[in-house]
């Protein structure tokens, strides 16, 4: 079944899952840069996060204000059950498509 997730949406969801309780704009961007070697632009990241929140894939909460951010609070993200299911479906689809191929160095079925 098609997950309805774009590639960047999957990357952002996986980064949030990896960061657990510490997922906010800056840390998500850093995690993506570290794991994929690509640094997303802030505009792309925030529009994707907003879109995913509207779809119900993530929820956000506002943390406490911190002085190093000019007294502005962080907006922490958490992946919802629907978000986790969407990632799982997308990964299953990839796995099925890869079955029988040797492009991942022998990781095929």
């Amino acid at each position, binding site marked *: 079944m098609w997950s309805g997730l774009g590639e960047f949406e999957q990357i952002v969801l996986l980064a949030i899952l990896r960061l657990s309780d510490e997922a*906010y704009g800056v840390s998500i*961007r850093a995690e993506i840069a570290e794991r994929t070697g690509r640094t997303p*632009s*802030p505009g792309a990241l925030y529009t994707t996060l907003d879109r995913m929140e509207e779809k119900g894939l993530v929820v*956000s909460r*506002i943390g406490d204000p911190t002085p190093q951010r000019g007294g502005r609070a962080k*907006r922490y993200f958490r992946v919802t059950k629907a978000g986790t299911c969407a990632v799982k479906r997308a990964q299953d689809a990839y796995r099925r498509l890869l079955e029988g191929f040797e492009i991942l160095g022998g990781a095929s079925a």
Partner: protein
Amino acid sequence: MHRIECAEFLLSRFTTHERATAIAGDLTELESTSFGFWCAVSHTAIALSTRFWLGVFVSSAAYVFAQRVAALSWGEGNSITGLAGLFTACMLLFSMIAAYSAVRLGLTDPVTKSAAAISSFSFIAVLFRGITWVPVASGVLTVLFIFALLLFAQGRKALLSILLAGAASFLGLWATWQLIGVVDPNQEAFGNLRWPLGLLILGLSSAVGIAAALPPSSVGQANSRPSSVE
């Protein structure tokens, strides 16, 4: 600190205040130089404004469409006064607000649904003006619908947003009309404001008014997403 407040103000034109505050904080943490900070703020504002501009465009298209319906119904160049004028004005205004709100706030938002309902009543009244009871029934239904909205908190908020957007839209339209009068007193270039240039300019100015007045966060969202602001 001043630059964060400016960035917050700019970003809050295109997203909710809480989100704008958090994004401004993130960009402060991320970018140490002023240049880098403003580049990031500009990029983010442009990315967030896509729906804003799409809404303005769709709203302008709704204006042009409603104008053509009015022109077909009443005849080109005829001045429409009295109750007929009121219905036509409602049709124009509410269809624009509904179109903008549908793109910006979503189809299920109370502002979209309320504006679409009032606009539909007006459309029916204008289209079937030859059958006497239809405009009367549409008028009665519009009044009853507005009364029904006043009974609920969400309805009252939606109505207030619609009234503000309507006033801002009218202001945009009036200002452009005055400007056209100064630039082109004989209305030669605008051809009596017929399709396409004059209508599009008036539609755009009116839609920008609506966009400026309607908040980025919808009435429905504010009530249905408590998890966003814990």
